[in-house]
């Protein structure tokens, strides 16, 4: 049993606690419901740790400063929601291109545009993965409890350092605002991944030459390396790359993540593992699905809920395995069918129709509705 303390807190607050424990000392953001609390609690706590929390002039500035602060030395993050997440997209691509470890939290609300600022939604599922331009990859984690807001934040910082990539925590209004018990382990009970540093003599160091795992070591600015960090597709020494160099650069920043998914991909099964009827859920919807599984069990109905915790890169193999033997698959999500497309792509069994239990408009699904859906659509 790990040593630590238990505290009732909001999901957004749990995220902040984890970020501080992980060593984040630079936060830049812009107020937006339902993510604002993260900015507020950061502005309260970071000064006490000699950190800096900046409310920037917009989300573009926030995200860009987070990327640069990472190169400046140290861990950095931001949090936002829908419209702010839109503004950050170009700079998320920048973080990918300059391989800057950093963490971005998107506490989802209804969209498009201003949508529903105080209501929950899961419509940014694809935006989190494909919102910036060009070919790239990044890691997206989906918490469904305040505890997971904490755990995923620790994991996000670690993965961002391990792969030198932005990691997105794709939360939603329900998870961000829920108040529940969170176990906060003592710092010495947690593992933190340190930044990968150059090991060769300074004169031999080549800025963008990766190790065998596809990740180049990263020195901080003003430590003597005098690195060119440009947002263009680059040669190994950091200049604009020719066609071949650009090709290699882009393939590497994708494969450094996608070839190592076994290190972090996570799919859980709740309920009867061999049940013929399976729900597929992510984020806050996992909670209602769990209750539905429990209610089903009381009625003698065997159900399983497949919870996709790391949604990008999509864990095809793990999901396929978690759904093995299922005859009926119901995807439950708060959008018009996004993760459903991935399930259809992954399952590929014509005899199994993938059904969609969808809620939008900010209405969180009730557990009884899952069971009703099973009956009515039978």
């Amino acid at each position: 049993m790990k040593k630590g303390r238990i505290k009732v807190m909001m999901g957004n607050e749990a995220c902040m606690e984890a970020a501080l424990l992980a060593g984040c000392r630079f936060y830049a953001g812009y107020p937006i419901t339902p993510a604002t609390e993260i900015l507020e609690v950061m502005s309260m706590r970071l000064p006490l740790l000699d950190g800096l929390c900046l409310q920037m002039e917009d989300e573009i500035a926030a995200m860009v400063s987070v990327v640069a602060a990472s190169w400046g030395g140290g861990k950095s993050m931001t949090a936002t929601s829908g419209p702010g997440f839109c503004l950050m997209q170009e700079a998320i691509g920048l973080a990918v291109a300059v391989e800057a470890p950093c963490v971005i939290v998107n506490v989802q609300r209804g969209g498009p545009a201003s949508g529903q600022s105080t209501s929950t939604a899961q419509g940014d599922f694809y935006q989190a993965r494909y919102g910036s331009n060009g070919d790239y990859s990044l890691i997206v984690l989906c918490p469904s409890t305040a505890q997971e807001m904490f755990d995923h934040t620790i994991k996000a910082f670690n993965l961002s350092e391990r792969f030198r990539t932005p990691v997105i925590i794709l939360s939603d209004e329900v998870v961000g605002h829920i108040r529940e018990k969170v176990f906060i382990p003592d710092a010495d009970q947690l593992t933190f991944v340190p930044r990968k540093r150059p090991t060769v003599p300074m004169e031999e160091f080549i800025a963008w030459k990766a190790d065998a795992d596809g990740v180049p070591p990263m020195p901080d600015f003003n430590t003597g390396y005098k690195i060119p960090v440009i947002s263009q597709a680059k040669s190994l020494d950091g200049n604009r790359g020719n066609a071949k160099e650009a090709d290699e650069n882009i393939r590497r920043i994708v494969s450094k993540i996608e070839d190592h998914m076994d290190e972090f991909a996570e799919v859980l099964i709740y309920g009867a593992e061999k049940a013929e009827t399976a729900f597929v859920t992510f984020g806050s919807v996992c909670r209602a699905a769990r209750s539905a599984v429990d209610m089903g069990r009381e009625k003698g109905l065997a159900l399983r809920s497949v919870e996709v915790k790391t949604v990008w890169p999509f864990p095809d193999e793990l999901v396929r395995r978690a759904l093995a033997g299922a005859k009926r698959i119901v995807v439950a999500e708060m959008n018009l069918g996004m993760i459903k497309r991935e399930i259809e792509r992954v399952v590929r069994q014509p005899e199994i129709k993938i059904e969609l239990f969808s809620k939008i408009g900010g209405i969180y699904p009730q557990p009884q509705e899952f069971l009703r859906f099973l009956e009515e659509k039978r």
Partner: protein
Amino acid sequence: MNPLGEKYLRKSFLPFLFCPGCGDGMIVQSFLQAVDDLGVADDLAMAAGIGCSAWIPVYMHFDVFKGLHGRAIPAAIGLKASRPSRKVVVFTGDGDGLAIGGLHLIHAARRNIDMTVVIVNNQIYAMTGGQVAPSTGVGSRTQTTPYGNLEKPLDGCKIAIASGATMVSRWSTAHTRQLTRTFKKALNHKGFSFVEVLSQCPVQTGRYILGSGSPQFNLQWLKDNCVAVKDPSQWGEIEAQGKIPVGDILQIEKPEFMEEVQRMNQKVKEEAQAKGGDR
């Protein structure tokens, strides 16, 4: 090679991507002279956006972050915040710094955060092939104002002053010695310093607006049109004559943002300790 180039240029990155006769190479030289005179190469962290002028720092053998179009200043803020002791210098274009990135200029100046912003004003979007910029004069024909520009140009120096910058100067590539002197002042200035450099772009501004693609003609145009004045109160008069005033406009002392942050952090830590317990 010029000894400054020998000492500070990233030789494997040469030749410059600048067109022949471009002012950007002259700015590289003036800046490196300032760095060499002050001996601050190891303390520098450079930030830039996108544009011809954004490539200026990339050729310099310093730590350089060249990010997104218009976002050099927020990048500079991230670099400054993560280590306040470094000297952060931004190179930005008139489009990069006044159009897409104009908001960041206002807010960084407002904070009086310690950094030097060098804005290279060639009165055009050069990198993309000669479109109108916020600094382009009324009536100018560019690729996107084929019938003449209707919009009044924006004066970056005035925006910087109004927003709270504590050092503001304007020179041109026809004033390389003054430029080096001003860069040195800016690098030593504690607070937000803004240096506008009027620069020649023979290929775009020259050919489309001024009527000649000759580098000599374009440099001469700057010499003929810039009027150096010591007293900033004369700027209006010179502008009224249709000329461009250059010189050091402003240098004042005001609390610097990162120092204020450190003071505040110290204070709240002491208060928290006095109260005891965790917060």
